[in-house]
């Protein structure tokens, strides 16, 4: 299975239970095909097949338990009928290695919205869910999330061509060294320093300002949604589970009844079923929450691109400012104008302390520096324009992806709700039949 959507597997299963299925399924296939369009994905299938718990010593020699994930890759050629698919190449990676990969991508491709990793720790949980990092359900959801991350990168027109990414998928040993050799960490340090420094851009690009504002809004609204959803899940859980008490009391009551006894007893079983059904319903709903979470974390990536744009813009403005200053100096030198005009000062400047030779050489140095400055501004301008161009291209791509993904997430959420309603109708109809027999 190679779907870019974390909920896809589940979604297909859910769709199977409902009436709306066929078109939906078709849509999914079409969409997935589109995303497979990168060279890498044409060449190879990627999945994170399983997770395993390991215990070992960490760098500071302390015993720790961690989870490793099995990455499987195999050639994507179509398997001829009757043939066996090629055995996949497999390797194990830890979550921290995924993090390293992402940091590398983040630094190397500042103009790209780097897909986020699944959450490190379970957040926005409703209370019945375990918050333990080693909890099997959590590990499973993370496995799906990590696979989704790899597929997002692999289906990205730029990121999919990255060598380090390819090595991540294919070389178990030596990958870490290869990443470190790229020297990206030095960049991390200097970039981080500048990013942390306070600076204010004079002429911010309105599009980026708007984008930044949007990503803040999205961040707020999704986290609010996730918080409320967790509370809704808690309450719904309560409603269902309290119904389970009917199961017990009907069964006890049935013991003292004659004609009504059987009906009550079996209605009681249906109430038990009803109470139990909420577990699966909410488990399924976690996939929806994960889809929302991915976009919650995406907002961070979007903001990071905006921030980097600001930095570049700022550097450009500084260079331009510097150049302007130098030009002003030159102007003063040529015309003899000084900002604070005085006859005495002017005379001394022109004829007094400074010889023409001196002036010449100062002039030459200024010329040189202005030329350099102009180069610099030109470069910065170019860099900035290039950044805006590439970044905007990726932003457009991201917007489209987001609209499509979220719309699909909403559809699958609605399908889940429908399936919940159907289960409810089913259980209550069964119970009603029993009541009718009383």
């Amino acid at each position: 299975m190679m779907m870019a959507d974390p909920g896809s597997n589940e979604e297909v299963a859910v769709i199977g239970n409902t009436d709306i299925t066929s078109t939906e399924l078709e849509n999914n296939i079409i969409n997935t095909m589109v995303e497979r369009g990168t060279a890498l994905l044409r060449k190879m299938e990627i999945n994170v097949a399983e997770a395993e718990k390991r215990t070992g010593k960490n760098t500071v020699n302390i015993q720790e338990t961690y989870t490793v994930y099995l990455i499987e890759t195999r050639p994507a050629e179509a398997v001829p009928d009757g043939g066996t698919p090629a055995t996949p190449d497999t390797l194990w990676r830890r979550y921290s290695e995924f993090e390293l990969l992402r940091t590398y991508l983040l630094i190397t491709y500042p103009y790209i919205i780097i897909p986020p990793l699944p959450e490190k720790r379970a957040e926005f949980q409703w209370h019945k869910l375990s918050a333990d990092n080693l909890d099997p359900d959590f590990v499973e959801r993370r496995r799906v999330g990590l696979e989704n991350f790899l597929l997002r990168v692999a289906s990205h027109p730029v990121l999919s061509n990255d060598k380090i990414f390819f090595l991540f998928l294919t070389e178990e040993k030596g990958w870490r060294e290869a990443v470190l050799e790229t020297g990206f960490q030095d960049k991390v340090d200097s970039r981080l320093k500048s990013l942390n420094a306070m600076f204010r851009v004079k002429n911010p690009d309105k599009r980026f300002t708007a984008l930044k504002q949007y990503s803040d809004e999205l961040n707020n609204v999704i986290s609010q949604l996730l918080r409320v959803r967790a509370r809704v899940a808690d309450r719904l859980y309560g409603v269902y589970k309290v119904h389970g008490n009917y199961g017990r009391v009907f069964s006890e009551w049935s013991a003292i009844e004659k004609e009504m006894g059987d009906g009550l007893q079996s209605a009681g079983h249906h109430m038990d079923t009803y109470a139990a059904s909420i577990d699966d319903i909410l488990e399924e709903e976690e996939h929806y929450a994960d889809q929302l979470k991915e976009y919650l974390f995406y907002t961070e990536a979007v903001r990071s691109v905006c921030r980097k744009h600001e930095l570049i813009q700022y550097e450009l403005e500084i260079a331009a400012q510097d150049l302007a200053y130098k030009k002003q100096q030159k102007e003063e030198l040529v015309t003899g104008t000084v900002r604070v005009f005085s006859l005495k000062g002017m005379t001394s400047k022109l004829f007094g302390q400074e010889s023409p030779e001196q002036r010449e050489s100062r002039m030459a140095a200024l010329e040189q520096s202005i030329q350099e400055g102009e180069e610099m501004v030109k470069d910065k301008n170019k860099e900035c324009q290039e950044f805006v161009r590439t970044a905007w291209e990726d932003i457009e791509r991201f917007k489209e992806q987001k609209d499509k993904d979220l719309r699909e997430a909403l559809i699958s959420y609605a399908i889940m709700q429908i399936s919940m309603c159907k289960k409810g109708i089913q259980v209550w109809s069964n119970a009603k039949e029993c009541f009718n027999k009383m």
Partner: protein
Amino acid sequence: MSVGAPRGLASSGQKPIAEILHPLSAAQEPLSPGLDVTVTVGVDKEAGLTNGTPVETSSPASASSLFNRLQLDDDLEADTRDPYASTETRDLFVTVDDPKKHVSTMETYITYRVSTKTSRIEFDLPEYCMRRRYQDFDWLRIKLEDSQPTHLIPPLPEKFVMKGVVDRFSEEFVETRMKALDKFLKRVADHPVLSFNPHLNAFLSAKDLNKRQGLALLTKVGESVKHVAGGYKLRARPAEFCAMGEYLDTFTQKLGTIDRIAQRILKEQSEYLTEVREYGTVYSSWAGSEEELQRPLEGVADSVSTCCRGLVDQSENMSQDFLPVLREYILYIESMKNVLRKRDQSQAEYEGRLEAAILRKQEDRTPIPVEVEKCQDKVECFNADLKADWERWQSNKRQDFKQLLTGMADKNINYYEKCQAAWESLITLLQDKQTEDKTSETN
């Protein structure tokens, strides 16, 4: 489900009150345009089913409703095996409806219209229409209990409600009480013995109840309670009555549990509702910052609020229809237990006298006095009445709970159907947009 079938008290007013189908009463009715609280219990038909003997329950006040009622009864006979359905008389129909608030300097109270239709010769007229207040019902019940000690007298709704929590003059409270009074009166009118009680006749037909004589009553009640309490020692209660007592104990306990569960569900549902409403709001506000996704997100918000409305209906139904029926049964069980106690008492009295008589007989050979024999007759009569009432009560109970629980299942099904429809229309909306997009892409 038959609830809601007949609507017709022609005489009651025309303003319908919120659609509340109460199992205790039946259909609902339009209200009189009067200024006061107007609540009406319709003619019921099915409602009758819930608690009482299904067949003879209702007493329509108008010809058309009578017609409806009979029709319904036919249906009932066809598909129920209620032994009473076809055997009992159906010549006395009563309805309690149309509450009115009366405000005087001394007190404020509610009266209900009590309508009667009958072909019995004990009544001078075929139809009556009286206004009675709760006190009058209370008087009737005490009279019945006093004059028919061997019979199970149906319960009245509780006189006192949690003060401060419930507004005695609120529409909901009045409506619920009215339905319970209606149920009470129908149960009495359908009873083969109680329905011939002269006090009932007076209650239904007398202009002036003249119940001040009721004061004496209170003392009598006190006495009888004393008797029960001071009990003679019973030698051996017949097994069947022991079984009844045990049954009632367990049943009341189970009903109490069901009542608690239902209340807890109501509480959980209302908390759930609060969260879900906020959940919907978040989708709306999200829609505000999106372009392409605006309509889908608004659609989700709409579906969520449709589901909320469905849940509100469902919860209201539970608190206004489901819970009152449970509570009436809990009271009903108390009445039944009371009769059982009185029976024990009368058996004890007989045994006591018999023992004394036997002792005396051994001493002086006097024959067993007539009064002892009378006592014996009384016990036998008590036993017979009680057994008949018990059978009738069991049968009613079965019908009532069948209807109550089926109704609960229906409400839940209905809720899920509403939600399902809301989500399905959302999917249509989302997919429409998608196909639209695709077409525009290909173009």
